């Protein structure tokens, strides 16, 4: 494996986006929530497993070949994505709570 800044960034960014999208869609689409619940017995446990699996898969896939771009600037997108995903979920649940 050729783990680089780029592969770590891809793994982190894709994992956080997938977790956020699955969380929001799960709240909106009930069959998806049921599927997430059935897989492990609880949707939250499934999402945790999913995040670890997505991280490992994306890291392995993006580390197969050495990265030509060795700039660490790509790492900045990890905290940016983390903040945006956290705000997206907070915003979604705020709107959801306001609806009652």
């Amino acid at each position, binding site marked *: 494996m050729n783990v680089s800044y780029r592969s770590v960034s891809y793994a982190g960014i894709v994992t956080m986006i997938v977790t956020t999208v699955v969380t929001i869609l799960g709240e909106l689409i009930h069959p998806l929530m049921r599927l997430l619940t059935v897989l492990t017995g609880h949707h939250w446990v499934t999402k945790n497993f999913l995040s670890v699996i997505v991280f490992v898969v994306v890291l392995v896939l993006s580390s197969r070949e050495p990265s030509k771009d060795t700039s660490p*600037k790509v790492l900045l997108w990890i905290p940016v994505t983390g903040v945006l995903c956290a705000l997206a979920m907070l915003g979604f649940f705020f709107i959801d709570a306001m609806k009652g």
Partner: protein
Amino acid sequence: MFGIFALVGAHAFLGEVGALCFLWALVEIINRSEASLARARIAGCLGVLFLFSSLIAVAYPYWVHYGPVTKSVITAGPMPWAHSLIMESKEHIAILIPVLGLCAAIAMFVARKEGTASPAYRYISIICALIVLMVLSLAGMGYTLSTAVVVTIGRGV
């Protein structure tokens, strides 16, 4: 019941220790030398371990106690938003934090071969700082949830 309280306590404790590990890593990166970066890598690995352990510790209480018992107490009380906004956000934002920790720890090992002058440490330190802030925010959310239960059923009930 005591086991559930112990696991919730362990969840809070492990999460805070995880955040302290990344604060430790941040300090080592700011004052960096070969020796301090080696300690930062250890702190990063320990932080990831503690953050994942924190989620594992709370899985059982969340599953068997929060959903069937605490949630209905909170939603029936004067602060129902503590569940619909605070808990829903907290439980899902918490999944992102170990991912950030993994990224920081792995990036520290990638930066190892570039020496102390690597510009990567600037970005890694931002990730470490974000982890500390997010964990502290979630601890505050946990306090809000406890308050929601207390104002619903009263202290000592």
